[in-house]
């Protein structure tokens, strides 16, 4: 049953959007107040308000014509104040606005959650005929169903905590208000992604989160490399987005509608037609390509570690808890599309498992604490896709939720450490921090325990559920299960290596220069809340074998019913209680054993890393560079493309334009030069090109008319 006409649902995304706008205005006012008088942005009414006379650099001839120049001299002096510590000014209000907007959205999300009990499966806002020209119509509505309700609670709930944390973390930044404007805008886009009723709204959110992620990764662009990392992340995301767009075009072609619920409902009707079934498979594959981009799966995952250039709250919110889970959300949302094709499901599971393994092993050797967490995130997302690959939609969402809790916690904890260590991120230069920052330490422990899957914590249940489903499928899935178990062992090891290097052992920093200190309570309180959630989050999905109902699975039943019905046609996979107990036990043992190994190896310091680096340098390098994937991109994608470009340019050049004169000696020139020679600047050459092309077109033309 759906409740319609719930206009208030629009307020959920609208609140962060309004917050973003307000913070943007605050940013503008702050900048304006900070700017030297009559600077750009302070729109004066004179034409010559910005002449540079007073500012010391060479005046242009045009400025000489200015008759306002005299007025500027009075203001020439107030330049050059430092950028280090900046008075917040009006921007001090920004976090209040942003957090209030988030809290409001969270409250509304809870209201929606409470309204979804019993037989109510979804709340719908009235449809808004957003574009309607007669030939072209797009309706947009907000739909809060069981799945988007979970997502919304996570986004707004964890988001609110991270906003509060960021209020402390970003204090003193000169673009304080801008940060919150971007962050709120991100939440708006993310909410559009999960709440919109049709593919178009979803796509707006899908691209929107990429944009905000670009802004936020590059937030500290003055350092240089964050701007580069942001560009890389954005472009790699866009590759996925392109795939997503093509996939959704295919869906529209198949179903004749953009509406998600119609698409979901229509899948079973298509399966009789093998051609349509094939197109459905293609659509699913392209959409999964989009999910790979957004959720950092093979082969598009290399942007996520680089995205750590952004401020830590960004890493926690966008690159751990929310944006990167969009791919999971999309797959669950369209679950019948995937359930219709077991081969596609296996492919997804395999991609997830291999990604989990590669990223997990890479995390073993990282020294930068945020990069460990980044690779861990990629690895955990791989788990979620493994779960989706088995058709365990609820298990994937369960892991998504618990992962949002503990990974946000770990990132924020890492941020607290970095903050306390004066922007140091290298774990080899930490150690023994537990006595300096106890609150961070204890909460971090909770997060680490959950991530590594220590028994009875949230991560334990969610991860083991995915592995149990994989095991139950049998056949080739057993290989994936083996990969999953191996990754679980690595996860426990690198997690506790990180804890040991950071908090245990001797202090490896210079105590005269670095004075670690605990973060203010505005940062530690969110940590504590998240710690509680990380520990008890498992209650959402206790396995039936423990004598409880899987609450989340039950909750999501209306959403996953269509996919499950299709899966049931291929047979069901159930485990007997004995096997299930055995798997739970195995998970617990592996987590505990590798936790012990991890701590033992690194509690004494960094010697172990150095030993690995010296005894097996090749392996260390291999792991360090994520199995050489980035290098492989350069070698197998970028270089061949450059080569192709080069060859094409030479061929064109040699055989049509300058070949008779230049000969083979020109081959030695660089690729860029070759290309440039095609636009040589000589009109006669241009004319030739046009003529040759016109002849080609004439050929085409005449071929048409025979």
């Amino acid at each position: 049953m759906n409740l319609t006409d719930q206009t208030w649902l629009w307020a959920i995304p609208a609140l962060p959007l309004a917050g973003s706008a307000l913070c943007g205005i605050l940013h503008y006012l702050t900048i304006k107040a900070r700017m030297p008088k009559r600077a750009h942005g302070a729109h004066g009414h004179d034409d010559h308000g910005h002449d540079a006379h007073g500012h010391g650099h060479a005046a242009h001839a045009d400025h000489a014509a200015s008759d306002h120049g005299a007025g500027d001299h009075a203001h020439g002096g107030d330049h050059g104040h430092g950028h280090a510590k900046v008075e917040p000014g009006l921007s001090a209000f920004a976090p209040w606005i942003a957090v209030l907007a988030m809290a409001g959205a969270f409250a509304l999300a809870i209201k929606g959650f409470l309204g979804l009990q019993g037989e109510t499966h979804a709340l719908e806002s009235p449809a808004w005929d957003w574009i309607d020209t007669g030939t072209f119509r797009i309706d947009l509505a907000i739909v809060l169903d069981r799945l988007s309700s979970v997502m919304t609670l996570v986004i707004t709930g964890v988001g609110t905590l991270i906003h509060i944390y960021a209020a402390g973390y970003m204090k003193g930044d000169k673009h304080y208000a801008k940060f919150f404007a971007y962050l709120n805008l991100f939440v708006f886009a993310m909410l559009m992604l999960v709440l919109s009723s049709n593919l178009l709204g979803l796509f707006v959110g899908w691209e929107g989160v990429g944009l905000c992620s670009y802004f936020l990764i590059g937030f500290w662009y003055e350092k240089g490399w964050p701007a580069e990392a942001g560009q890389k992340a954005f472009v790699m995301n866009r590759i996925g987005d392109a795939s997503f767009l093509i996939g959704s075009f295919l869906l529209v072609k198949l179903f004749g509608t953009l509406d998600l619920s119609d698409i979901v409902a229509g899948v079973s009707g298509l399966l009789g037609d093998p051609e349509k079934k094939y197109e459905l498979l293609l659509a699913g594959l392209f959409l999964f390509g989009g999910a790979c981009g957004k959720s950092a799966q093979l082969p598009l995952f290399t942007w996520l570690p680089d995205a750590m250039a952004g401020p830590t709250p960004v890493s926690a919110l966008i690159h751990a808890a929310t944006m990167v889970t969009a791919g999971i959300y999309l797959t669950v949302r369209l679950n019948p599309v995937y359930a219709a094709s077991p081969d596609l499901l296996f492919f997804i599971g395999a991609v997830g498992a291999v990604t989990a393994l590669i990223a997990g092993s890479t995390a073993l050797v990282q020294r930068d604490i945020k990069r460990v967490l980044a690779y861990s995130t990629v690895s955990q997302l791989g788990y979620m896709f493994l779960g989706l690959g088995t058709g365990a939609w609820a298990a994937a969402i369960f892991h998504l939720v618990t992962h949002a809790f503990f990974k946000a916690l770990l990132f924020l904890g890492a941020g607290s450490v970095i903050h306390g260590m004066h922007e140091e991120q290298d774990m080899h230069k930490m150690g023994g921090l537990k006595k300096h920052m106890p609150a961070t330490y204890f909460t971090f422990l909770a997060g680490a325990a959950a991530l590594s899957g220590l028994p009875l914590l949230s991560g334990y249940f969610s991860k083991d559920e995915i592995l149990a489903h994989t095991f139950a499928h049998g056949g080739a899935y057993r290989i994936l299960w083996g990969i999953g178990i191996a990754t679980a062992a690595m996860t426990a090891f690198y997690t506790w290596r990180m804890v040991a290097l950071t908090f245990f052992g001797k202090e490896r920093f210079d105590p005269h220069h670095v004075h670690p200190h605990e973060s203010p309570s505005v940062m530690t309180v969110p940590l504590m809340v998240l710690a509680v959630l990380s520990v008890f989050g498992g209650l959402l999905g206790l396995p039936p074998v423990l004598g409880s109902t899987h609450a989340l699975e039950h909750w999501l039943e209306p959403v996953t019913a269509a996919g499950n019905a299709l899966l049931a046609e291929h047979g069901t996979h159930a485990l007997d209680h004995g096997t299930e107990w055995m798997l739970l036990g195995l998970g617990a043992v592996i987590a505990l054993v590798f936790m012990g190994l991890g701590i033992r190896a690194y509690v004494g310091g960094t010697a172990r890393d150095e030993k690995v680096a010296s005894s097996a340098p090749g392996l260390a390098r291999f792991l360090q560079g994520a199995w050489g994937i980035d290098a492989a991109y350069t070698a197998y994608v970028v270089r061949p493309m450059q080569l192709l470009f080069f060859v094409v340019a030479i061929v064109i050049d040699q055989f049509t334009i300058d070949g008779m004169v230049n000969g083979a000696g020109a081959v030695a020139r660089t690729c860029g030069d070759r290309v440039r020679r095609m636009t040589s600047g000589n009109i006669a050459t241009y004319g030739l090109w046009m003529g040759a092309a016109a002849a080609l077109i004439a050929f085409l033309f005449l071929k048409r008319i025979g």
Partner: protein
Amino acid sequence: MTVPSSHLLILAAILFSIGVAGFFLRRNVIVVLMCIELMLNAANLSFLAASRMHSLDTPGGRIDLQGPIFAIFVIVVAAVEAAVGLALVIALYRRKQTVSLDDVVDLKD
């Protein structure tokens, strides 16, 4: 004259092709402009030839006028292009003291 109109059309095509070839082959920008004029004249001849083709079949010996009218407009266009083109040549010559297209290659990557 009882020459078939298609022969006029072929003459126009020949003149146009010579114009195109000159446009490609010559480097003196004034000669290139002349070649463009030649191309426009070939267009005019085509207009008239086609007009004549229709006139032959029009009852009562009346001639089709659209070709001649179009041709008059083309003549004006040609005059305008010659004037502007030559003015541009003068402007360029003042800057670079050349009329060779081979020397006008500063704009490139």
